[in-house]
């Protein structure tokens, strides 16, 4: 597991108040991890803070699985 994925799990675990171990690469934030719409805003901000990146609000709708989210962050960090 990459550093990005590990840190993303930490963020998810904190915001969604779930056990880090339950997060799989294919986990969907809403369906599998129970993210509510209001938590999604906190999640964006927490990811931005953790990785020092900017996320467009509407991009969130494209990265609702752990795998896609990690990929997005890696791309943003690389930029």
């Amino acid at each position, binding site marked *: 597991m990459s550093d990005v994925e590990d840190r993303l799990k930490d963020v998810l675990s904190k915001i969604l108040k779930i056990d880090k171990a339950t997060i799989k690469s294919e986990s969907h934030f809403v369906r599998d991890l129970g993210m509510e719409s209001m938590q999604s805003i906190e999640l964006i901000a927490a990811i931005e803070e953790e990785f020092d990146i900017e996320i467009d*609000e*509407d991009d969130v709708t494209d990265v609702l699985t752990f795998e896609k989210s990690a990929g997005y962050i890696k791309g943003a960090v690389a930029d």
Partner: protein
Amino acid sequence: MAANEYRKLSPVEVHRLQLQNCFAEDWGKVLVRGDLDERRVYGVEFHGTVKIGELTGTVEDVGGVVKNAGIYRAKLSNCEIGDNVRIVDVVGHIANYRIGDGAIIEGVGTMATTPGATFGNGTLVEAVNEGGGREIPVFDTMSAQFAYIMCAHRYRPKVIAALEKMVADHVRSRTSDMGEVGAGAVVRSVPEIVNVRIGAAARVIGAAAIEEGTILSEPEAPAEVGMGVAAKYFIIGEGSKIMGGAILTSCFVGQGVRIGKQFSAENSLFFANAEAFHGEAVSIFAGPYTTTHHKSTLLIAGMFSFYNAGSGTNQSNHMYKLGPLHQGLLERGAKTGSFSYMIWPCVVGPFSVVMGKNMSNFDLGDMPFSYIDAAADGKSYVYPGMNLFTVGTVRDGAKWPDRDRRKGTSKRDRIVFDVFSPYTVGRMMTGEAQLKKLAEETDRSVDEVKLSGAMIRRLVIKTTAKYYATGIDMYLMGKVFERAEKAIGEGGGASDVKKALSAPRGAVHSDEWTDLSGLLVARERLDAVHADLESGKVKDLRAVSLALDGGFDAYGADEWEWIRRAYAERYGKLPHKLKGDELAWVAAGYRKARGKFLKMVLADAQKEFDELAQIGFGVDGSSADRQADFEAVRGKFEEDKFVMQMRAEMANLDERVDDFTNKVKKL
């Protein structure tokens, strides 16, 4: 004798009427017009002066049933009966009433007017603050805007005094010893009607009792008062239907309103197209399109408009200290979720959604389009701008104009339907500034901070400020883009575009706008109305109406002037000074903001079709059955009408912006 003059009965006519079981206290006071067909007057007792029109034709009842005009088995006292009226089976009496041509009155008990009746005009309705202080003397032609000023602007006592005087004058003009039933009205099976003026073509059928009121009605917009309704001290507007055992006490009901299914209301005002079923209202100002449909919903001591109450919605206005003194304001477009609760005082910003049991007193007027959610401990948390990008907000904006039920000759409540306007976007700008400041001032070690009486999670501050920024860009850039696009589309050159983006004639500018319960106006216009009321320049109800109409008519020009100034403040240049490449930049900015908006609304719509939404479908079947069942009932996401509209707009947006950019660069 002219054909339309009343005459005394001849001795032969009196004799024939006596043979038909008729009795008169004084036959000399029974007057008729034209030839009298005595067969149409049977079992009637006349007291005082009774004038009767021609009774030779027929009346048309509900459902097109044709009946003979005539008076059968009734006691009439001091009445004027129009031509071809049908009065049958009056159990008690009809006293002091003027009954219009073609009206039908059947099976009523007592129907009487007492001296000096005001027919509900002048009734003091203690709206918004149950403890008093905002009493509105209602009258038959009252608009939402008049009531709003009277209710909300108590900080201008001279304005209130001027309005009160006008209403008092109007009430005097409406005072009479005679009640009225308008032409073509139907009044049937109502045991008690006292001091009620009933308009033309109204249907008052099966009501339990109606007292001290006016039912405005006209053939184009007939009002209905139906089964089991009990109303006392009221005004009911044209095209409204009060049905199903509703109970109204000291209430004003405007035009196109629906109240029924055992709803009860007291000291409340309902304006254009409001709907109230099942629940209860006490001391509320229900502005246009206020909707409450569910049982266990109590709306109390609040002001609402374009509002939707979830089931079990409830508020408290009583701290068990000095009485029920507290009040709440839910600004236009607000919603309350099922079993949501608020403890007044609170202010909910425009188009916000309230959920949970909120035990905080908050003032979130500057945080429009928010979610306000209560934690288990009752603390209220605000998520600003969360309701900007939802299907609900988009649909609301489209549905209200389509659902305007007012079909009469006048629409008294002036309504600006726009979701995005100087009022809401101005609030977003204030909200954005507050959130940015809060973000700067809040240390990263903090989880949450207080915002206007509610809590806000630190992590949401920055993101929600961006939500507002998107909404502001979409509105300001969109309006500039649309004007320039229209000018170019009409074959205009640079000068035409400049003209289209210039200051409008006759507009006023105010940073602040206000929502007069449906009418959005620049503060300066409202201040002018206030000043004219205080000086006496506006001195009667008609003049007030014209002044408010002026604000309504000026909305488009004032809105554009506000946009121009707001644009300049935000982006550094007045729109009419923008060059071709700058206009292309505006178009690109609009594409970005609007595209983002549409994408997020679509994502919200997608939730209605995802796996979680399919729970409960395909019962007893396989997962394939679940999918098939869901699609049979709900359809497919791709084929949903709303989704297709949004996608079409997205595609169209790109085309429009590309086309505009090509053209504007050549200017």
